[in-house]
């Protein structure tokens, strides 16, 4: 496993305010990591630290073998960054902007311009950026981040303002790059989107890393109940199936659906009971805790001790 980014014990203070406190994590090649946390949790600060735009108060950061804070930026040629609320000089056209960024990265301009078609900006590329909508600026932002086959991609809220179709294309592109060895770190509020895609999730709260692992690992750690939804025929409106163990948390949803909160070790047992002895179960859904619920759980569990 080759590391591309190493963040070790990083703390960043803005005056008295601690934006990030003692955060450590590594990014490996081909990893796609979601950085989640509400506004002000330190996501953008972490990205700026990795870019060397600001210096950490304590700790050390290494990106593609460089220390970004020391003004070493050879590695930045292989780094793509999409800032939150990206903006461009309004007077230039999309094509001129893309060409300018390609030149700065010493990449062939023609190849960079092909990226504009890929993000669906082809027809608008000759128009001034000043006339672009938010979604089009976001597309241009993506196109510039992808210039020159980046090895590390830092994407700050990349899918805001994108329509569903482009969102799909965006994730396809990112996943292809990740498969080819790019490390992708993306922050987002759209947790459901990330659920199936991110191999690893880092949850931040008030500048502290509260969880780090794959979704399965986080589910195991959180021990949140899995929801089992049953469609049962022939039940009275407030009646529960007789085979349910007493004390199992369950409720009725819109008429004939029974929802049971099953702790991880009860899950199989409950399913056995539900399907055994010709019970009147007509349909069955198993819903594992979503990333939303995991996120809420980890936030709550870190706030409790305070």
């Amino acid at each position, binding site marked *: 496993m080759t590391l591309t980014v190493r963040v070790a014990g990083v703390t960043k203070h803005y005056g008295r305010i601690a934006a990030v406190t003692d955060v450590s994590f590594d990014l490996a090649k081909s990893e796609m990591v979601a950085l989640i946390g509400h506004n002000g949790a330190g996501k953008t600060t972490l990205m700026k630290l990795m870019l060397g*735009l600001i210096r950490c108060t304590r700790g050390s950061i290494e990106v593609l073998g460089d220390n970004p804070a020391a003004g070493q*930026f050879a590695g930045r040629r292989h780094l793509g960054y999409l*800032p939150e609320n*990206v*903006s*461009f000089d309004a*007077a*230039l056209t999309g094509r001129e902007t893309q060409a300018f*960024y390609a030149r700065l*990265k010493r990449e062939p301009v023609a190849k960079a311009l092909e990226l504009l078609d890929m993000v669906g900006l082809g027809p608008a590329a000759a128009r001034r950026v000043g006339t672009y909508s938010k979604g089009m600026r976001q597309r241009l932002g993506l196109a510039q981040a992808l210039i020159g086959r980046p090895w590390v991609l830092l994407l700050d809220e990349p899918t805001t303002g994108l329509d569903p179709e482009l969102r799909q294309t965006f994730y396809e592109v990112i996943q292809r790059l990740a498969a080819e060895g790019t490390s992708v770190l993306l922050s987002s509020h759209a947790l459901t989107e990330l659920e199936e895609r991110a191999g690893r999730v880092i949850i931040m709260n008030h500048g502290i890393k509260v969880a780090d692992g794959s979704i399965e690992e986080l589910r195991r750690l959180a021990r949140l109940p899995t929801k089992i939804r049953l469609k049962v025929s022939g039940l009275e409106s407030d009646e529960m199936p007789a085979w349910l163990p007493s004390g199992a948390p369950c409720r009725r949803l819109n008429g004939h659906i029974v929802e049971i909160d099953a702790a991880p070790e009860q899950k199989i047992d409950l399913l056995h009971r539900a399907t055994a002895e010709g019970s009147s179960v007509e349909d069955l859904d198993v819903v594992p805790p979503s990333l939303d619920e995991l996120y809420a759980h980890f936030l709550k569990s870190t706030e409790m001790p305070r």
Partner: protein
Amino acid sequence: MSAIIVALKEIHQAVRNRWVLAATLLLAGLALSLTFLGSAPTGSVGVRALDVVVVSLSSLTILLIPLIALLISHDAIVGDMERGTMLLLLSYPVARWQVLLGKFLGHLAVLAFATCLGYGLAAAALMVTGSRVDNDSLVAFAAMIGSSVLLGAVFVAIGYLISALARDRGTAAGVCIGLWLLLVLIYDMALLGLLALDQAAIFPPASSMLCFCSIPLTSIGSSI
């Protein structure tokens, strides 16, 4: 090399925003009118026509070049920070000094282009209308353009300083206008007033402070 890329983009933007056009037209228009109106009292005999133009254009330079330079430069850093374009630019493999140098070269090129073309038009018009122009006058004229561009460079740099220190664009613009008034108008007038009052030379530093006065400085520079 990165600085050159940034400089070319600045020039491109200035052309697109019609900064180049506006500055050139302004300087050319004023220079042409000064050339023909300014030479009316002297007529076409006596003093060499181009020398008169050099003197009147240097007054124009003192007033206008600092203003144009500050207008172009006050937005360079704080504006890009506010719009968020600086954040993205600095994530590229380019050092901060390269960004600044690039902007400086670009802005200076715009200013130099406007000055050379605007003033050059005035000189050309003079020659076309049949005034005799000798070599000494041409040298003086070239020196005047050179010192105008240098003066512009100084004020572009001052503009960057303000732009780097200011918290928002409005403040930067206000400080720049204030500084222009102070350096270009008030300082000169105050000093001249002091010299006029100080006939008895009670205050010797006054005459030496003349060195820091922009009006004589450029006039001397251009008449050598």
